């Protein structure tokens, strides 16, 4: 292999252009980001408009009046406080339970030999490719027969057992050197103890990833709550947003305000935790590597 080292031709002009290139690149990227964010920006401004200026021939960003009160109105209109509480609690519980189940299962696959393990593992693999929303009808009928329709249990349980979490964690657990456990085993640790004290701390990045997935999955879930919930006590935010359409039309400015209130926490979380989020999603999300 001949040593081409660096390309010498054109280096000097390229070096001179670098700051220009950097500036241009940055500008284009941010313009694109601005265009991309236009819907969200527009949502925010629409949320501040009076009702009769949402539509109409003369659309502008800022209406004739700036109504911060729309947020308060939206809040009371659909009892947003309850929606928020419901969504948060359900998402939190789902996340914790998902983590527990996935950890136990992954540990069994990664570290424990038991008769029939390959068969069970195969079953999990197969379900990984199953479309999740397809079987809502029997799922609904099942809960209804068990007289559990319209309960928190019905809302949370189906989402806890996806094979994805077990796979993710298994992947990470496989990478833990066996000698750590051997050492613990020699020290007399039980299997359970090994899981808690050895394995779990070492797969923390994967647990973060899974936690994020589980939380978001629950937070944004729409079809299943739509089907299983009847009473407004248990509504989550996505269902509540639909509640802005009443028998007397839709108050769009309030709906936009509610959307802002729904998306804003997401923005805050992402902004604050972006480094962890990006690292977490990337680090574990694709299994094989």
């Amino acid at each position, binding site marked *: 292999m001949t040593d081409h080292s660096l390309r010498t031709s054109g280096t000097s002009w390229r070096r001179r252009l670098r700051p220009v290139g950097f500036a241009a690149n940055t500008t284009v990227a941010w313009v694109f980001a601005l265009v991309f964010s236009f819907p969200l920006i527009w949502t925010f401004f629409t949320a501040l408009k009076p*009702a*009769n*200026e*949402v*539509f*109409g*021939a*003369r659309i502008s960003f800022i209406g004739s009046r700036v109504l911060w009160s729309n947020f308060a109105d939206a809040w*009371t*209109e*659909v009892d947003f406080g309850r929606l928020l509480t419901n969504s948060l609690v359900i998402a939190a519980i789902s996340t914790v339970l998902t983590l527990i189940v996935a950890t136990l299962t992954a540990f069994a696959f990664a570290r424990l030999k038991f008769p029939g393990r390959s068969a069970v593992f195969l079953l999990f693999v197969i379900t990984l490719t199953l479309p999740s929303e397809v079987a809502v009808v029997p799922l*609904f009928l099942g809960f*209804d027969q068990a*007289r*559990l*329709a*319209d*309960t*928190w*249990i019905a809302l949370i349980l189906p989402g806890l057992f996806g094979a994805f979490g077990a796979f993710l964690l298994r992947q990470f657990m496989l990478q833990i050197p066996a000698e750590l456990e051997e050492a613990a*085993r020699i020290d*007399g*640790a*039980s*299997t*359970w103890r090994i899981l808690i004290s050895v394995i779990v701390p070492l797969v923390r990045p994967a647990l973060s990833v899974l936690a994020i997935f589980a939380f978001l999955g629950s937070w944004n879930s729409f079809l299943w709550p*739509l*089907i299983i*919930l*009847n*009473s*407004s*006590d248990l509504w989550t935010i996505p*269902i509540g947003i*639909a*509640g*802005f*359409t*009443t*028998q*007397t*039309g*839709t*108050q*769009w400015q*309030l709906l936009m305000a509610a959307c802002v209130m729904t998306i804003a926490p997401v923005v805050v979380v992402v902004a604050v935790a972006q480094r962890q989020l990006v690292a977490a999603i990337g680090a574990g999300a694709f299994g094989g590597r």
Partner: protein
Amino acid sequence: MKSLTKVGRKRRVSAAVAVAGVLALGLAACSGGGSSSGLDGKTLKMYTWIGGKADRQQWSDYIAGGKHADPKMAVSFSGPPINDYYTKLPTVMKSSSAPCLVTFQNGRVGQYVQGLEPLDELAKKNKVDLKAYSSAMLEQLSVKGKLYSIPFNAGPTVVLYNKKLFAAAGIADPKNDWTVDDFIAAAKATTKDGVYGFAIPQGSNPISTIMAADGHPYADSKGPKLDDPNFKDALQLLVDLSNKYKVAKPLEAAAGGSFPDIDAFSTGQAAMEMQGLWDLQHEQQALGKDNVGIAVIPSKTGTSKGFIGGSGFGITKTCGDKQKAFKAIEAMTSKSGLEYVTKAQASVPARLDALDAWSTNVGSPAFASVIKQMTGDATPSPVPSNQAQLDTLLTQYEVNAFSGKSTVSEVLAQVKAGLAQ
């Protein structure tokens, strides 16, 4: 071995804990709720449509009215937005938390008859005089001769118009004998400066209304009369209003159960709309009490007949105390109950003897004459059992007629094919 027994014991313990946990959760989920199905203790549960504050206020008002008539009455309510109400209703009626009372609009009872208790016997037993209610309305809430719901408000579809916009255009308020041509002329006059003369509603309601104005029912015992030339003409009129006369915005694809016409009218983007009277209160709030007028539906000849709709209360088959439920309905739809409601709600009571109170509290003599004409001389029409499907399909396919992609005949053919599925 030490580790073996430790694991074994731990495992047995955790297994026991897990089982206990599941049982506890199960019990927690199953417990709660009243001793009788559909009741919370002594309070009757009602399932109905609840979107925002206005909906909640309405039901509170009706319950307050019922209490005014019968202080022993106790009813609580819950439910989804109107979009989802009819799809969720069968689910709810079958579930363990089934209510005692349910509500229905404009005669949509047909699909749910299996879960409803016929009310004729209860009415007889409690000596309730059904003649106090408009017979056309009662017919809408009956299936095969059995009554399933007692109406509380009358919602003849009327034309609501924006008085300010009419004045600005220099045209007189509509009269009780105005024709379709008069209507189109008024719409043309008020279409300017980005405002349209008319806002077209989605679904089958405008079609059935226009047909009824000339005395043609839109459905019979076999279902909606999609082959009837009057049906076609009605839809064609709507399309023409947008495409030919250019007095209305064409309909676009939209989620079913939304009301772009109400949105447009209540924000002053359209001068007229065609909706049930129950929208009056909301429009008065949005546009100003004295700014909203109502008119009869324009007809071809000038003698318009009404299309009666109305919302009513029903009792579920699974209700644990049907007599109590009926008493509650009786209270809420009694003369004193409905009169009480007119103090807070602008919707027209379903009882003819409560209309005077309504006129005093809400309306004006002009309103009263419109109501009398619309309810007095109404075209009775059975409501097909696939009403929900009809509305969904029409909402989807009529957009193509507005965009010119299909003719009205083609649209109706597609709806017909969809219903046949």
